[in-house]
């Protein structure tokens, strides 16, 4: 046992000291932080300049004053000006752009042009088209000569928002957010995929390194091959956990620093809604598009927050750790076996495929799971050990019956023993084989060697 810990320590220390590890660990948080910070910056720097837009209608005045001014955009309705008069010099006249509404608008909806020097923000376009659509609808309705049309329109103006409530058999309910569940499913599934792959192949490269520089023979005259293999797998797992922990800490630190030092107060208030959940971020950002948070949006946030709180966090964290460790162990031992069977990294390809396919299949099914968590495809893939770490992580935010989780985890544990045993057999023979290219037939023989 003491020898395994020596091996683990060496694997851990040499990797953690590597320049590439240090650079990756320090740089990646910047990337992560950028993912959070860029939307904040975009939001806070959204074109706040006051804009004036000239509206020109040719041959009618149907839409005069139809588009209301917004906080930072005024619409000026120019009468008797032709498009060609202003087209080339609107900028000099102090206009941001010219909105040209052709007389055919009622029949041809694309008879509108916004001419500007810069790409107009999407919010502005929505504002214009929304206002015009409403007016055109109104005009069309008017043509039917309905009495009290205004009143009717006012009363039929509704907005629908679905509240999702999950009820378990005992009848207790909790409010959930499908958005958050999806985001968690995505995050869990994808992270699992990334980690298993990244650190699994790190193990493989380590095995190949030891084999190609022939140190393996020296070491296995002191320790058993299986000890060397397990030591490496565990050492790399610890490297992975270290890197992961550092990424989280550094990213949070960076986001906080950037937030407090660069962003204006207004943006900060908006962003304070964010930490409540990663998942809320998308919606919060969309909601915060308008520069003040309305009461409605605030309750939206509260709901999101409540939805996030109502996720089965304990289960999610427990399963994440469980599936990370077991999934990693499963794939890392397969990768170690592959590494032992080849002489260099380019030769790994023929054996990589059967190992990579389940991982990628898992990821694809996990993505589908977000749309339909209850499908039988998702069910089976979350039970089968090769794909279960990824797919089950994507299913858990949508509530999975306990027996399914237990079955999946149980199968996983059994499979790991099988995989480690198998990998150890291949590894033991493989690391001492040089020179000839290994075939699947040969791998099978190694599996059946005695002693």
């Amino acid at each position, binding site marked *: 046992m003491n*020898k395994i810990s*020596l*091996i683990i320590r*060496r694997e851990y220390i*040499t990797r953690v000291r590597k320049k590439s590890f240090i650079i990756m660990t320090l740089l990646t948080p910047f990337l992560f932080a950028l993912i959070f910070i860029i939307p904040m910056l975009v939001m806070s720097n959204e074109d706040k300049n006051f804009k004036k837009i000239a509206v020109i209608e040719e041959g009618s005045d149907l839409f005069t004053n139809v588009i209301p001014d917004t906080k930072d955009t005024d619409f000026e309705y120019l009468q008797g000006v032709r498009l060609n008069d202003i087209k080339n010099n609107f900028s000099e006249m102090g206009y941001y752009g010219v909105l040209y509404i052709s007389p055919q608008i009622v029949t041809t909806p694309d008879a509108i042009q916004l001419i500007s020097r810069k790409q107009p923000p999407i919010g502005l376009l929505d504002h214009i088209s929304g206002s015009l659509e409403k007016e055109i609808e109104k005009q069309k309705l008017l043509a039917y000569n309905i009495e009290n049309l205004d009143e009717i329109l006012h009363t039929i103006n509704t907005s629908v928002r679905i509240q999702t409530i999950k009820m378990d058999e005992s009848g207790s309910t909790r409010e959930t957010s499908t958005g958050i569940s999806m985001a968690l499913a995505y995050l869990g599934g994808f992270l699992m995929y990334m980690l298993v792959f990244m650190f699994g192949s790190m193990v493989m490269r380590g095995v190949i*390194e*030891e084999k190609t*520089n*022939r*140190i*393996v*023979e*020296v*070491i*296995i*005259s*002191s*320790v058993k091959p299986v000890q060397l293999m397990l030591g490496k797998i565990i050492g790399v797992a610890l490297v992975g956990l270290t890197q992961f922990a550092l990424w989280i800490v550094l990213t949070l630190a960076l986001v906080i620093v950037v937030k407090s030092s660069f962003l204006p107060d207004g943006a900060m208030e908006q962003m304070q809604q964010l930490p409540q959940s990663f998942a809320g971020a998308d919606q919060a950002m969309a909601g915060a598009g308008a520069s003040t948070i309305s009461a409605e949006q605030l309750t939206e946030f509260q709901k999101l927050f409540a939805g996030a709180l109502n996720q089965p966090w304990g289960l999610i964290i427990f399963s994440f750790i469980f599936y990370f460790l077991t999934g990693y162990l499963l794939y890392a031992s397969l990768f170690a076996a592959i590494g032992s069977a080849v002489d260099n990294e380019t030769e790994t390809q023929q054996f990589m495929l059967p190992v990579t396919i389940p991982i990628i299949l898992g990821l694809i099914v996990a993505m589908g799971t977000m749309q339909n968590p209850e499908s039988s495809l998702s069910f089976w893939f979350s039970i089968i050990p090769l794909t279960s770490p990824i797919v089950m992580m994507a299913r858990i935010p949508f509530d999975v019956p306990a027996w399914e989780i237990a079955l999946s985890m149980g199968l996983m544990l059994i499979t790991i023993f099988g995989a480690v045993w198998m990998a150890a057999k291949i590894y033991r023979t493989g690391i*001492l084989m*040089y020179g000839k290219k290994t075939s699947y037939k040969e791998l099978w*023989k190694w599996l059946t060697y005695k*002693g």
Partner: protein
Amino acid sequence: MALFEAQNVTKRFATQTALDSVSISVPEQSIYGLLGPNGAGKTTLIRIINQITAPDSGAIFLNGRPIRPDDVHNIGYLPEERGLYKKMKVGEQALYLAQLKGLSHAEAMRRLKYWFKKLEIIGWWDKKIQELSKGMQQKVQFITTVLHEPKLLIFDEPFTGFDPINVKQIKEEILFLRERGATIIFSTHNMGSVEELCDHITLINKANTILEGSVEKIRRDWAANEFNIIFDGEVTPAGNGHFSVLNSDFEAGKSVVRIKATESGDTNEIIKAMTAAGKVVSFNPALPSMNEIFIRVVETRNREAAKN
């Protein structure tokens, strides 16, 4: 007493037999040569001794009892295909390998310092392996092999990559280790160093032992009853019923004559004939070199095998 013994060890791989009932017996505190052409099964035998692989049948004894897993602490192995972690520092790496052999950190440090000083590489402690020359790497590897003071040392081609000065230094260290009680199994193709170092040898060919015994005895056994005689001045003895002259050279005032005794040749008679022929400077039986024996034995065997 034999420190190490292998009895009827057989190991088969899927398509070939690597060792076919091979037995060796290595006396304590001797240097034992394990010889054989490439692919004869030497490496497999060494791996079995190291318990890297297990034999299909046969028994392995160390110190008179069956070998045990924790005997790895009593064995030091310098493989032919050597390797160290290229990016690790020399000292760190030596320390790691020593600890894997069961030495404590403090004890490993103490011994490493001693050996690094002795082999004059103390200045390399903090260098990475990849910055070292091949010979330097070999020295580091030699140290890691002997550091835990094992009773049994296995050196597979220990001199490749060394310059003559370092070869001499390592030879001295090997003899020194034997003096201090170590038993050494020495595998090589360099027959010169076999004559110089080995007390006993086993010659393995195609999974079988074909020659075995002490180096002295083998060379005498294989001697073809030939003698080298050196005379002062130009002398050519004439052959008689006891011997025939094979060749004779005159150079720098001395004659070097090689003769072969006949079946009924009597050594005393031969000597008499020599002293009668001229002034004898030296008279030696011409022992074949291990190199000649190796080639003759292996070739004879292979011819026989081809006939069958």
